[in-house]
């Protein structure tokens, strides 16, 4: 079998090269993202340790903040580290859209079901 990454599509792989100057810029960006990701993690730990449940803020607010911070982190990892931000738009959509649709449906249906089970448990136990 022909190795397509060696022969037919070599142009894509070889064209992925960049120069020394570009490399410097890219590295600078990567270091910045590292700092951002570390800072977010530190904030999350700080919140986890010091924000007591329902004491300082409502637990719903803290939970929502955790989820938003996590999505920001995930965005940086996928778009910068995995280079999805630099790929063609059609690839971005092919990867992100089906996943987003399915997982949102799954979360909705799952939590709805969970709530209903809890309701049954606390009513008829």
């Amino acid at each position, binding site marked *: 079998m022909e190795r397509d990454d060696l022969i037919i599509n070599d142009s894509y792989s070889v064209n992925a*090269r960049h120069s020394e100057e570009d490399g410097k810029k890219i590295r600078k960006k990567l270091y910045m993202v590292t700092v951002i990701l570390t800072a977010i993690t530190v904030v999350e730990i700080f919140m986890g340790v010091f924000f007591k449940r329902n004491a300082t803020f409502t637990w719903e607010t803290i939970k929502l903040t955790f989820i938003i911070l996590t999505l920001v982190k995930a965005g940086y990892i996928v778009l910068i580290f995995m280079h999805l931000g*630099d790929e063609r738009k059609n690839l971005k959509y092919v990867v992100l859209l089906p996943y987003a649709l399915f997982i949102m449906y799954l979360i909705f249906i799952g939590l709805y079901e969970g709530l209903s089970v809890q309701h049954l448990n606390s009513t008829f136990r």
Partner: protein
Amino acid sequence: MSGHAEAVSKEQLWSGGGSPFSISYGKMMMWYFLVSDALTFGGLLTAYGVIRHGSSDPWPVGEQVFESLPGLHGSYPLIYVALMTFILIISSVTMVLAVEAGHRMDKKGVIKWMGYTVLGGLFFLSSQAWEWSHFIHGSGGGFQISTPMSVNATDDHGQPITMNLAAGTWVHMTADVGHAYEHAIDNGGSVEVHNGNLVVHHAAHAEGHDAHAGMAAGHGDHAASAEHAAAEEIPLDLVLNKYTLEHKDGKDLRKIHVTGAEAEKLMKDMSANTLVFGANLHKNEYAVQQQYSNFFFFITGFHGFHVLQGIIINFVIWMMARRGVFERRGHYEMVEKVGLFWHFVDLVWVFVFTFYYLV
């Protein structure tokens, strides 16, 4: 970054002869695989959410369960898991630096950064092994009471408080009591409750272990006198609400200590077969819900399995880079592909960290 963004008309892209996504087949397939793997993890985390949402008993709080550091006593909530998260993020950074070096055909750079990535992965995996071991052994132990009762206890601030407990309430032993109890049972000894103390009778053959049990219980003087008496007395110290934060009138009701005769009452009302030290696939000391530890084992275990795969694949690619395979091939795309997998492993951990340890 990689020259993919040049303007090409739609007709040209989709008219055949090349990839409409302007990436190679291998990279495309790695993306498809990652989407499917992300669905697996998304399904697991959602299942965890369903069980947790559907539970009417309190769910353990992450910063109460995971608050130990290797070799240290005391409470360091979430510090160890924060360290693990940081290591994985840093190994993700070294991975992307290896990819960048590959784009410059910098063989030395690729070897250096991939080497660091493999080391970071190994460090993460060993940390996870320690955390599993700690989770399985537990800190103390616990049991459920069989009849409703009210006990006089002391709250966090040293104030007396009366607790009305329902049948099935979870009671924890502090490390001193729990470890002595567990040690006695493991070595064929027996325990009884007398005068507010846990009296441990060591089995005849296990006398050599007395000193060890005494040390674990923090009662060196007892251990010293253990040569003539094989029984050891440890003052009872039990904790209510250890792994859950419950707020009553703005008060943190986390560590309600029960000692002396009141503790004796609880110990004597121990429900059969509920005594557990740490966690296994049938029982756990952290929660009423067994799914809590089962999901811990499955989700972090499945993620750890991915880390292991990532380390092995990274190591293979590191060896190939050292041998100059990619230099001869003319590009380092293989590094980019395994990099995608490694970043994905980091991405999954970001979500596991949030939903298992923080929320």
